[in-house]
């Protein structure tokens, strides 16, 4: 098969000006991949600087509540910066250092990947610019605050739908001028080759750990593994621990938004989503687009899932029947989030809560000797503004109104 392709998906549809940059990146990546000491350095860094291995928590109360399969939760929320994003970013940071570049740029939607990149840049001593849709800058002020405090420059993107895909376009525009000293840290398993493969490699640490942990705690492999899918990096991360085990069913959960039938969603892989094959942002995948190929606006309660495309690797796995896809609506996400908080004292990010929704739908029909793993890709407590808004919490609103009044007087 052609390099960088997964079935008919993937590729590297890049402007000619980036040809040499990608040639260099491919070389650096392949050398790192062939060098066992690189992975060792990566694992040590993640153990020392971040919080790896992250635990696999047995959710005893949720298991009892549903009365079906044993529910385990892979705790990427306990990774540094609060999500799986750090795995990819620290890995690419090591690679950037090897390539001798001094500046990193990144796109961000909700701000998690931007924060992780700004953190990595601070740690490695790189200059850092983060592109973020203007609409997301407005929605995610706390993350912008932290990125700036970490020393990054945050550039609001005012073009297009002013969300994640537009931030990605703008990062590409920076890169075609700055590639000599700059690396573009793509945040997910999308974009031109080698990004899908490379990011999946860094994220595979999740699956490697989860596999060992479930064997230890449950005595055998799980029956099903659930992960939310925006671009697909956390899903690819955990799925890779079980891809070669046909007995383990892999379930990707997309953003159903206000319901697939309303058209206000960000699902690409489920029946009726309306997604079709396309080529944009440097790769070929299923996109939410018009029949003529113009990308559409997407919607999700979770900014991290609000994206038009999806990993070419996951599309291929879906086509081959290895990964099954489902969707969770905004409303279901809030219910699953509430239940998880109250039952286990764990606060999933709204992105991650999509995986919980589907697991909760299926667990009751499974038997108590079966086990499932839910990949909790990130923590929700740092998204308090977004979650409190989604809960429409009166006391929170009152607090904001009073705080705003105090600022306007002061």
């Amino acid at each position, binding site marked *: 098969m052609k390099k960088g392709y997964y079935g008919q998906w993937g590729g*590297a549809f890049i402007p000619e*000006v980036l040809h040499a940059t990608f040639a260099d990146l491919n070389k650096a990546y392949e050398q790192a991949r062939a060098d066992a000491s690189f992975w060792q350095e990566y694992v040590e860094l993640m153990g020392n600087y971040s919080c790896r291995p992250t635990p696999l928590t047995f959710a005893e109360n949720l298991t009892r509540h549903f009365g079906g399969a044993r529910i385990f939760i892979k705790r990427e929320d306990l990774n540094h910066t609060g999500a799986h994003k750090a795995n990819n970013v620290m890995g690419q940071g090591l690679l950037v250092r090897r390539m001798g570049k001094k500046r990193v740029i990144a796109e961000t939607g909700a701000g998690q990947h931007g924060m992780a990149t700004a953190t990595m840049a601070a740690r490695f001593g790189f200059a850092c610019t983060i592109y973020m849709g203007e609409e997301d800058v407005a929605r995610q002020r706390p993350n912008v605050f932290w990125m700036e405090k970490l020393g990054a420059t945050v550039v609001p993107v005012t073009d297009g739908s002013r969300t994640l895909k537009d931030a990605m376009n703008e990062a590409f525009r920076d890169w*075609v*001028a700055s*590639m000599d000293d700059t690396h573009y840290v793509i945040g997910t398993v999308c974009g031109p080759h080698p990004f899908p493969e490379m990011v999946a490699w860094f994220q595979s640490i999740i699956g490697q750990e989860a596999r060992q942990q479930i064997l230890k705690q449950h005595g055998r492999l799980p029956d099903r593994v659930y992960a939310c899918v925006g671009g697909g990096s956390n899903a690819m991360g955990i799925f890779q621990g079980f891809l070669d085990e046909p007995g383990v069913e892999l379930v990707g959960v997309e953003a159903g938004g206000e319901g697939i039938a309303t058209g206000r969603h960000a699902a690409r892989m489920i029946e009726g989503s309306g997604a079709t094959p396309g080529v*944009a942002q440097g790769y070929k995948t299923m996109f939410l687009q018009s029949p*003529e190929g113009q990308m559409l606006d997407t919607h999700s309660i979770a900014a991290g899932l609000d994206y038009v495309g999806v990993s070419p690797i996951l599309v291929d796995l879906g086509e081959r029947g290895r990964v099954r896809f489902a969707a969770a609506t905004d409303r279901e996400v809030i219910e699953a989030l509430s239940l998880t908080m109250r039952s286990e004292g764990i606060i999933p990010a709204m992105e991650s809560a999509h995986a919980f929704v589907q697991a909760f739908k299926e667990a009751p029909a499974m038997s108590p000797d079966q086990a499932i793993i839910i990949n909790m890709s990130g923590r929700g407590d740092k998204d308090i503004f977004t979650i409190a808004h989604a809960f429409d919490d009166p006391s929170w609103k009152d607090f904001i109104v009073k705080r705003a009044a105090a600022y306007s007087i002061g």
Partner: protein
Amino acid sequence: MSGNLEHELKQRRQQKKILLMTHLVLGYPSLAINREVIRQMAEAGVDCIELQIPFSEPIADGPVILKANQRSLDQGITVEECLRFGQEMAAAFPQVRFLFMTYYNIVFKYGEAAFLRRTRDIGFCGTIVADLPPEEGQGYLATSKELGLAPVLFFTPTSSDERMRQVAAQGAGFVYCVARRGVTGRQTAFDQALDQYLARCRRATALPLAVGFGISNREDVARLADKADMAVIGTATIKLVDAQGPAAVGPFIAGLKVSL
């Protein structure tokens, strides 16, 4: 109408010190204004015009062309309208060689072979696809050549000599030499580095060289006269139409011409 673009440009080059190619984004500010702008360009004697079919994710374009793409799409432009308009222009101005410029998804969604056949049938002579490197465009390159269309490929300052030869061997018509790193529309420094780059381009291929990205005045065009075959004016005319309306285009283009 498509003929052999390379041959045609080389012949024209015998009569002129440097050829001119202009660019516009279809549907921006409107097809009616596009029509007037193209008429002015044709009457002012441009050799080629690239008509950009708008795409929602134009990653190689700078702010001016990006906004033009968006505005045009917001106003509801369709690929079908672009094709029909192109047909009208090619028929109205037979002395001008027309090419479509776009991003690969537009071609892909229309159907690669169907898009190229239609492009030929309406009297266009080639296509410029910003995000389709030869490695991904083998079918596109082969079909274009079968149809007698020129699939125009790119040289850039980051291209090695080897890469230039590799690319040139697969393209046709002319080579689009991007004058500098970065997106469309920003100023290009006309310096020794550019001269050296263009000399490298010249050594790599016998195809005519078109030079674009940030060319905006007669001095820029004159500087290119001995080093390239065609100057590409993109963002500058879009800005001009925005600021002064379509009537300013004719005099602007006429003022760029460098006589023998």
